[in-house]
């Protein structure tokens, strides 16, 4: 028996297919079957009048903490947070315990996510065993298990020789290497961006050159290896410029930006705000504007959150000791909508950076509303306002810099493979 879902009267935006119009979206047996007219009777109808209907969002950079640190987050709580934020596919980083450096753990993560059944979870495999920057993982085996790219996120591949081999080996098979670009010898002991704010607070800073020097080195190595190189959560002005130049040169260099890096600056840390501590750190206004410009001109093709849930105990110990990272899944869309309101991006271009662009980079068959595609859909009211309350966050992590802040733009429905999994604040 087929089940038909009709999403009526919404403003459908599907960047992959160039669709941007008022229409009905028909879903049958978990697949998109029509946009516009369709001859049938719906079993279930969602009135999307005044709302935007787009592909379920993809967040290609999250930390789900399972296995190993389930008190911070697990695949279930992370999946729930994802659909609350309109996200139906996400890529989880391998710094779990054990690490996702062999197929067994990758399969475990994927299977657990399927059991939860709310959101696709695509693991990012480790580049090196134990994330220790020495020996390469079995990338082919990990790919067969379902890994969609490789990264030692959080433990940057500092050794230039290993990085060269990692890029060459991954390029051999067409895999993408994602680097958390940070030269740790420069950032060691630091907790926020180095500059006037770190000087005033008397804490050790992380100079922007830590990020820039590694991006610069990696681009050179990627050039020689003709490799696919992706800079995670780019945060610096010079970094964006280097990626822009690499693209112009025809290199397969791509990058992503996190909402906090285009919405906030280091000033957020004043008053020793631990919920504004992450790596790479919030930087200067010039860096923030450069990230925005990179998003505008296409240098940065993806928005990804670096969702990094932590337990309160790991944050409640003062700025220098607090863990790095903030949660992001539930605030990704409204914070990013500021780019549309600020005239930086069209709505369609914004949605592309959170759907078909990451899908294309990672070879996912999600991120579109093409006829026949799995019906992952996000419906949101771009004008609805709500206030972030850390106690009401779905994620186990309550570490958000937006606590108490008003958001404009609210996800009202999330649909996963034709099933409504989130509706008006409730996970179904």
């Amino acid at each position, binding site marked *: 028996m087929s089940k038909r879902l009709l999403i009526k009267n919404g403003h459908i935006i599907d960047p992959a297919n160039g669709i941007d119009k008022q229409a009905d979206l028909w879903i049958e047996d978990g697949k998109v079957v029509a946009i516009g007219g369709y001859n049938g009777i719906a079993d279930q109808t969602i009135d999307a009048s005044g709302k935007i209907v787009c592909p379920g969002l993809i967040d290609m950079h999250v930390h789900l903490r399972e296995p190993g640190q389930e008190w911070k987050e697990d695949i279930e709580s992370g999946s729930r947070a994802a659909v609350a934020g309109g996200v139906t596919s996400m890529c989880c980083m391998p710094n779990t315990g054990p690490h996702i450096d062999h197929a067994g753990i990758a399969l475990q993560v994927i299977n657990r996510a399927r059991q939860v059944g709310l959101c696709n979870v695509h693991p990012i495999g480790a580049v090196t065993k134990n994330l220790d920057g020495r020996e390469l993982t079995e990338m082919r085996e990990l790919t067969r298990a379902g890994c969609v790219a490789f990264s030692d996120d959080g433990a940057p591949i500092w050794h230039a020789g290993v990085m060269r081999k990692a890029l060459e080996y991954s390029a051999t098979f067409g895999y993408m290497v994602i680097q958390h670009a940070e030269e740790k010898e420069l950032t060691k002991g630091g907790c926020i961006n180095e500059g006037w704010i770190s*000087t005033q607070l008397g804490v050790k800073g992380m100079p922007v050159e830590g990020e820039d020097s590694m991006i610069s080195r990696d681009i050179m190595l990627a050039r020689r290896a003709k490799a696919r190189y992706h800079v995670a959560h780019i945060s610096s002005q010079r970094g964006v410029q280097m990626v822009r130049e690499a693209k112009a040169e025809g290199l397969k260099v791509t990058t992503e930006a996190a909402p906090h890096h285009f919405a906030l600056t280091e*000033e957020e840390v004043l008053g*020793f705000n631990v919920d504004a501590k992450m790596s790479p750190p919030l930087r200067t206004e010039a860096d923030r504007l450069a990230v925005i410009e990179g998003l505008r001109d296409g240098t940065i093709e993806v928005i990804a959150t670096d969702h990094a849930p932590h337990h309160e105990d790991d944050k409640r110990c003062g700025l220098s000791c607090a863990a790095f990272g903030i949660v992001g899944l539930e605030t990704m869309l409204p914070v990013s909508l500021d780019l549309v309101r600020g005239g930086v991006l069209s709505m369609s271009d914004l949605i592309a950076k959170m759907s078909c662009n990451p899908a294309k980079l990672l070879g996912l068959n999600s991120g579109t509303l093409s006829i026949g595609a799995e019906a992952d859909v996000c419906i949101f009211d771009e004008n609805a306002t709500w206030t972030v309350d850390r106690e009401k966050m779905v994620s186990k992590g309550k570490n958000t810099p937006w606590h108490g802040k008003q958001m404009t733009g609210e996800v009202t429905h999330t649909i996963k493979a034709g099933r409504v999994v989130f509706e008006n604040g409730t996970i179904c």
Partner: protein
Amino acid sequence: MEALKHLFGIADLSKEQIEHLVNLGDSFIDINRRPIKKAPTLRGKTIINLFFENSTRTRTSFELAGKRLSADVINISASTSATSKGESLLDTGQTLAAMQPHVLVIRHSLAGTCEFLAEHLEHTAIVNAGDGAHEHPTQILTDLLTLKQAWGSPEGKTMTIVGDISHSRVARSHLLAAKKLGYHMRVVAPKTLLPSEVERYGCEVYHNFDEALPGSDVVYMLRIQTERLTDACAFPSIREYHEAYGLNAKRLKAAGEDCIVMHPGPMNRGVEISSDVADSLKSHILNQVEHGVAVRMAVLATLCGGHPEEKPVSKKKSSDEVKQAQGSLL
């Protein structure tokens, strides 16, 4: 003038509050010189000195300040406290606060410790006795009292501060105080010991000590920690550091007749300062130590001055204004 609930740093104090504390400290000098060094001001008050870093003069002067004003004073140092058993900073703070002291005096190697604890401890006044490289307000009040004794007012004078500016809470607090009270700051250090964008404090930055000396009214030497040499490659040797940035009587001549010398202690003789300066008449280093007790009496008296029932309210800084100023994205 706003009543003081905590003392986190010079950044939170108005010019009037600073002057009030210095003047009050001035009036306490006399008690310390009497044969019977006791006043009843803080009778019935409890003060806990919680020191996570080594300290001789700051801890002793806080202790004496409390005792000479008749408070009950307890000292806890990190080595004897529960922190060595893995108790978190917050748990230690909450445990001590549960014993209902009026004031917690805290020194910690992490910047922002006092602000952090004050957020969670509602009923206890907190005094910063030095937090990482952030602030050391009572040292600056001590220095200002010393300058008051020497000159009357620091306004229009030039303080040249030399050494490890990067890791110095004393330097940061002076840079903030100078703006409020109208004295000029020159900072002198190799680039390896200067924090980023230090010039934004409104100070003059020198790398050549000899060029910074003419026109200086006070030369303020900072202690050089020898671990900077090995850990941070900040300078190649003590010998070379002393040659470039050490103060001796010969070098000091460039500063003119009336220039005085200060140091927050402890001194490394032969490193940042030579004995021919440290022990000279130009040195006000021991005056600083004496005034430290008086100024800390003023701080404790001010913070405990209210009714014991009165709950100090945390003056947590928020970055809301900053965010509002940022407004839209572009």
